[in-house]
């Protein structure tokens, strides 16, 4: 794990929490929508809070995909669950909402869970290729190497025949 990777994990956490908050704030302004009035959904998207929330959630998805490209699912999910804690802290210190003792306990449990995986390795090293595509690629490479080796191998029999053909 290097600094860039920690930054990506922080991005997943912050973008998810901020995107959800913006979406929630915007949807409270637009009022409830129903399945029978679908144009209401389009109007909701025009709300700047909702639009910005969607942009942030797209950023969340991009960083989440990036994290999954080099880390296990069972590492990324707990590591980014600090977003829940972030939301509770924003509720307490920015929105001045009441955070009950039960919620503080929840924050403590999540933080403890993140602490547990933080010290471990982020990815499982597989001794052999897991995916079909990888193994197919491997076998292609192996075949190519084999063909190359055969082509490069000096074949006295052929060389002899070539000489025999050239001689007359």
């Amino acid at each position, binding site marked *: 794990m290097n600094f*860039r990777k920690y930054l990506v994990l922080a991005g997943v956490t912050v973008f998810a929490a901020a995107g959800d908050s913006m979406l929630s704030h915007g949807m409270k302004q637009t009022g409830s929508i129903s399945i029978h009035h679908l144009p209401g959904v389009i109007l909701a998207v025009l709300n700047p809070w909702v639009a910005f929330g969607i942009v942030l959630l797209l950023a969340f998805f991009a960083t*989440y*995909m*990036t994290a*999954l*490209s*080099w880390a*296990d*699912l*069972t*590492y*990324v*999910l*707990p590591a980014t*669950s600090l977003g*829940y*804690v972030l939301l*509770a802290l924003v509720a307490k210190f920015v929105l001045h909402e009441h955070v009950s003792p*039960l*919620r503080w*306990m*929840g*924050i*403590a*449990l*999540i*933080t*403890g*869970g*993140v602490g*547990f*995986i933080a*010290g*471990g390795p982020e990815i*499982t090293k*597989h001794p052999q290729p*897991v*995916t079909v*595509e*990888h193994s197919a690629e491997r076998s292609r490479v192996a075949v190519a190497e084999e063909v190359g080796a055969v082509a490069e191998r000096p074949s006295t029999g052929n060389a002899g025949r070539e000489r025999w053909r050239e001689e007359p």
Partner: protein
Amino acid sequence: MRVLYTWGAILAIVFASVVGDVLLSRAMKQVGDVGELRRRSGLRVVIQRILGNSHFLMGVAAMSVAFFSLLFALSWGDVSLVAPAAASLTFIGNAIAAKVFLHERVDRRRWIAAGLVAAGVALLAG
């Protein structure tokens, strides 16, 4: 009956989310380290590889199913039950599915982490 519908929808959310997460994780492992790939071949190749991956597309479809299940669940049950129940069960489901289908090494450390986070989320959102 309403309780049954709500729990049915919660289980549907959990199932679809877990399937989606597993498929997306597998897709991204097949694509490889995105940062390295971008430096080597450029952003266009990265996007092409991701969008051309069948596991990625199936994962996004599963996530859409999870989203619509959430809408159904919220129309039948309270958000204070649906959100924490779905989120914490998804954490546990993901740990099991990652071990079985992705062959991740879910050691004691990761089980404890998944359990603590699931319990914490249930308390926080409850």
